[in-house]
C-alpha cells in the first residue's frame, strides 16, 4: 500500500535520512522504532508532504506521491497525526473534529462524528469546550479523532503515547488496535518500543537515519540487541 | 579577512603616520582635484559620503547586532538640529574666543565650531539612542522595527513643533562649515571606528548576539548591554551624518527626516549585505548616484528602483555584495594570479 524507496532527506548540511526503504502492506500495523533523533518524525513529515525529500520516492496505492503538497496527500487518504498533540487550541472540540473532515463534502460526516464519540466518549462530554483547556490525554484523543474524521485509509501516527500517564498509554494502544480492526492501515512511530511491538505486525528499527533491522514484530521483540537498546533489557 | 587582521596590532606611530598621510591626501584632493570637478558632481559626491556614514552606522545596528531599526532618520535629525542650533546660538561666541569674525571666520575656526557642534549632536543622538534602546531592544524583529519607526516619527513631530529650530517651516541660515574636507575626514573616521569595532572582541560579541541571542547569553555575553551599545553608537554616527548634512546643506527641514529616509538607509544596508562594511559603502555610493544616473527617465526612476529592490530580495536575499567584506586588494591579487598563468 505504501512503498518508500531510498528516501533521502537533508536539512542544510544535516543528512537526516539516508536511503530508507520500507513498505507497509494493506491492512497491517507497521511500527518504526528508534531512539530520540533517529529520524522517525522526519520520515513521517516527509511522507505527509510537510518536508521535501532530497532523494528517493514514495508510492501510495501505486501512485507516486513524492513532492506533492500535504493537502493532496490527505485527499488520497494518507493522514498524519502529528506528534505532540497539536490540536487547534483556540477552537472547540467540535470545530477541531470538523476541521478533520475539511476535505469531505459527503453526508456521512455526522455519522463519523458519532463513531469518534463512541471511540472517545470523553470528547463528547467536552464537545463545546475549547481544545486548549483539555488535559494531555484528551488532547491526544482529539488529535486521533480529528485524524479519523477524514476517513483515512492509511494513518501515520507519531508518538501517540508520548507524555501520557501509564494508564492512558494502555488506553491509547487499545484505540490503535481498534482503529486497525475497523480497517485502517497504520504506520506507527513510537519510542515506547515495548507497546508498539505488541500492537504491530511488522517492525523497522531506525538508527541515525538508517534502517538497521526489520522483521515481524514478534521476532524483533525477541532480538537481543533490540531488547538491550529499546526494551530496557526487559 | 584574516590577512587584514594584523592591522589591529600596528604600533601607535605607524597609525599616526597613516592618519597624517590620509589627512594630506584629503587636503590635496580638496586643493587640487575638487576645483576641477563640476559642482553638481561634487555635491553628489559629498551627499554620497554622508550616506556612507549613515549606512555604515546603521549596519552596525542592523547587520552586526541583528537588531532591525527603522528609526535612523530620527537620530540623523537630532544630530543635524542640535549641531545647527549650536552653531547658530553658541557659534559666534566660540568664534569670538578664537579671535575670528562671525561673518568670515576662516577655515580653521569654522572647523572648530563644526567639530564642537558635531560632537554635541552625536552625543545627544547617542543619549537618545540609549534612552530609546533600553526599553525597545527587549522587543524582537518586526516589533522592534515598528517601535523604532515610531520613535523616529515622534522625533520628527517634536522638531516640527519646536519653533526655536524653525518648526514646520524648517531651519534656515545654518552656517555652511562642512565641505568636502570635513565630510571626507569624518567619513574616514567613521569607517575606521566601525572597522576596528567589528574586528574587535566586541565585534565578535555582537555577531554572537545576531546569530543566536540565547546561545550568546549562555556563553556569558551580556547581550542587552551589547545591543544597547551598538544601538547608541549607531545613533551617534547617524548624528554625525546629520550634522555634516546640516552644515553642508545650510538648511534643514523636518520632512527630510520621515521614515522614508530611514528606509532609504536600510535599503543601502540590505543591498550592500548585512554585516559587510565595504558592502554598505558601495551600496551607499551606488544608491546616491543611481537616481542621478536615472535622471533621463526621471518619471520611472522610483518605480524601477522599487522593483529592483523586490527582485533583489527574491533572487539575492544576501545583498548584492553578500555577507563578507569586499576586498579590493584581494581582487587585484586574483587578477595578478590569473595574469601570471
Amino acid at each position: 500500500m505504501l512503498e518508500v524507496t531510498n528516501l533521502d532527506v537533508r536539512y542544510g548540511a544535516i543528512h537526516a535520512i539516508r536511503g530508507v526503504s520500507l513498505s507497509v502492506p494493506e491492512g497491517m500495523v507497521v511500527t518504526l522504532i528508534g531512539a530520540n533523533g533517529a529520524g522517525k518524525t522526519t520520515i513521517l513529515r516527509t511522507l505527509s508532504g510537510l518536508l521535501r525529500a532530497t532523494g528517493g520516492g514514495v508510492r501510495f496505492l501505486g501512485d507516486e506521491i513524492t513532492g506533492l503538497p500535504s493537502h493532496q496527500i490527505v485527499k488520497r487518504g494518507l493522514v498524519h497525526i502529528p506528534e505532540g498533540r497539536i490540536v487547534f487550541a483556540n477552537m472547540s472540540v467540535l470545530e477541531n473534529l470538523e476541521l478533520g473532515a475539511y476535505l469531505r463534502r459527503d453526508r456521512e460526516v455526522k455519522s463519523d462524528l458519532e463513531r469518534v464519540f463512541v471511540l472517545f466518549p470523553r470528547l463528547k462530554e467536552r464537545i463545546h469546550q475549547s481544545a486548549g483547556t483539555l488535559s494531555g490525554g484528551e488532547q491526544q484523543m482529539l488529535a486521533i479523532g480529528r485524524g479519523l474524521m477524514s476517513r483515512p485509509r492509511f494513518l501515520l501516527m507519531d508518538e501517540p503515547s508520548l507524555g501520557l500517564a501509564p494508564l492512558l498509554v494502555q488506553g491509547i494502544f487499545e484505540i490503535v488496535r481498534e482503529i486497525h480492526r475497523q480497517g485502517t492501515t497504520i504506520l506507527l512511530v513510537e519510542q515506547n518500543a515495548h507497546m508498539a511491538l505488541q500492537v504491530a505486525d511488522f517492525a523497522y528499527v531506525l538508527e541515525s537515519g538508517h534502517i538497521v533491522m526489520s522483521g515481524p514484530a514478534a521476532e524483533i521483540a525477541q532480538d537481543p540487541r533490540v531488547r538491550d537498546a529499546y526494551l530496557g533489557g526487559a | 579577512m584574516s590577512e587584514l587582521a594584523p592591522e589591529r596590532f600596528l604600533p601607535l606611530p605607524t597609525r599616526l603616520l597613516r592618519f597624517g598621510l590620509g589627512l594630506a591626501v584629503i587636503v590635496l584632493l580638496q586643493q587640487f582635484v575638487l576645483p576641477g570637478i563640476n559642482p553638481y558632481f561634487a555635491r553628489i559626491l559629498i551627499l554620497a559620503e554622508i550616506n556612507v556614514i549613515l549606512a555604515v552606522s546603521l549596519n552596525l545596528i542592523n547587520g552586526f547586532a541583528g537588531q532591525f531599526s527603522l528609526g535612523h532618520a530620527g537620530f540623523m535629525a537630532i544630530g543635524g538640529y542640535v549641531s545647527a542650533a549650536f552653531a547658530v546660538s553658541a557659534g559666534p561666541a566660540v568664534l569670538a574666543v578664537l579671535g575670528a569674525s562671525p561673518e568670515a571666520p576662516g577655515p580653521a575656526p569654522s572647523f572648530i565650531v563644526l567639530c564642537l557642534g558635531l560632537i554635541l549632536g552625536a552625543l545627544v543622538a547617542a543619549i537618545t539612542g540609549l534612552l530609546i534602546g533600553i526599553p525597545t531592544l527587549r522587543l524582537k524583529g518586526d516589533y522592534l522595527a515598528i517601535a523604532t519607526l515610531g520613535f523616529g516619527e515622534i522625533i520628527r513631530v517634536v522638531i516640527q513643533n519646536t519653533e526655536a529650530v524653525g518648526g514646520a517651516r524648517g531651519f534656515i541660515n545654518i552656517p555652511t562649515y562642512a565641505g568636502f574636507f570635513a565630510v571626507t575626514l569624518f567619513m574616514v573616521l567613521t569607517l575606521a571606528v566601525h572597522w576596528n569595532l567589528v574586528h574587535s572582541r566586541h565585534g565578535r560579541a555582537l555577531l554572537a548576539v545576531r546569530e543566536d541571542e540565547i546561545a550568546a547569553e549562555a556563553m556569558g555575553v551580556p547581550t542587552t548591554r551589547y545591543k544597547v551599545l551598538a544601538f547608541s553608537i549607531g545613533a551617534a554616527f547617524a548624528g554625525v551624518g546629520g550634522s555634516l548634512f546640516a552644515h553642508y546643506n545650510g538648511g534643514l527641514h523636518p520632512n527630510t527626516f520621515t521614515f522614508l529616509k530611514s528606509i532609504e538607509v536600510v535599503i543601502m544596508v540590505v543591498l550592500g549585505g548585512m554585516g559587510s562594511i565595504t558592502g554598505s559603502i558601495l551600496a551607499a555610493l551606488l544608491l546616491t548616484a543611481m537616481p542621478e544616473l536615472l535622471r533621463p527617465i526621471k518619471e520611472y526612476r522610483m518605480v524601477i528602483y522599487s522593483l529592483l529592490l523586490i527582485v533583489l530580495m527574491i533572487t539575492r536575499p544576501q545583498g548584492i555584495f553578500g555577507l563578507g567584506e569586499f576586498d579590493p586588494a584581494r581582487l587585484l591579487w586574483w587578477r595578478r594570479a590569473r595574469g601570471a598563468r
Partner: protein
Amino acid sequence: MQEFLQQLVNGIAIGSIYALIALGYTMVYGILRFVNFAHGDVFMVGAFFGLFAAGWIGASAGANGPAAVVVVFLAAMFGAAVLGVILERFAYKPVRGQPRLNALITAIGVSLFLENAGILIFGADPKTFPELLPPANYSVGGVKISSTQVMTLAGSCLLMLGLNFVVYRTRIGKAMRAVSFSRDAASLMGIPTDRVITATFALGSALAAAAGVLFSMSYPRLDPLMGVMQGLKAFVAAVLGGIGNIPGAVVGGLVLGLAETLVSGYLSSTYRDAIAFVLLIVILIVKPSGLLGRAVSEKV
C-alpha cells in the same frame, strides 16, 4: 459635555476606518507572521479604484442613489482584492521561508512601488472624490453627525459583521483560523494553505479598499501618498489591539481614533500624528501582546 460627545462621534468615525485597515494587517500577520508594509498603499489604490468607479457610472455632484454607492464600494473592493492576490503571488510568496527581515524589506519595496506607480499613473496632485451622498447633517441631542459619518459607521459595522461571519461561520474562515494556529497542522487536515493565504490577502485588501472609499468620502482629497500615514496608524491600531487578533484590530482602531480626536481637540492638534506612535511605544513596552492579546496563546 456636548463637545466631548461630538469628539467621541468624530473619533469613532475615523477609528472605524483605522479598524478596517488594521483588520488586513492583523489577518495577514496572524497567518504569516508578516507585516504587510504595503497594506496602507492598497488602501490608497482602493480609494482610487473607488474614484474611477464613481467616474464610470457618472456619479458626480451630490444626489446619487444607494445603488451608486454600492457599485463604487464593490468595484473598489474587488479591484483591491485582485491587487492583493497579485502582490502576494509575485512579491511575497517567493520570499516566504526566507528570514522575516527579507519579507519586511520586500513589503517596503512593494509599498514604494505602489506609491511611485501611483504617482506615475494617477499623478502626484490630489484628486477630488465626488460626493456620493447628498451632504446632510443630523443633530442628535446637539451632536452633529454628517451623512458620511453615518455611512462610515454603518458601512464599517456591516463589513465587520461580514468578516466575523466569514471567519467564524464559513469553511474558508475555519481554514484561516487553523492556518494561523499552525500551518503544518492545518495542511495535515487537508487544508490547501497556499489558497487560504491568497484568500486572506484578498479579504484584507478588500477591507482596506472599503476603508479607502469611506475615508475619501470624509476627506475627499486623494493622492498616491495618502496611504502612508493611514497605513502606519492602522498598523499601530493592530498592534495596540494585539496583532493577529481580529477583535483586537477593531478595538485598537477605535482606541486610536478616539485618542487622536480627543488629544487634538483638547490638547494640541499639531501633535496629532505623534499620538499613534506614542500609544504604540507605550503598549509595546507595557504589554507587547496588545490590549486583547493573551500572553502565550494562539498568536505569539
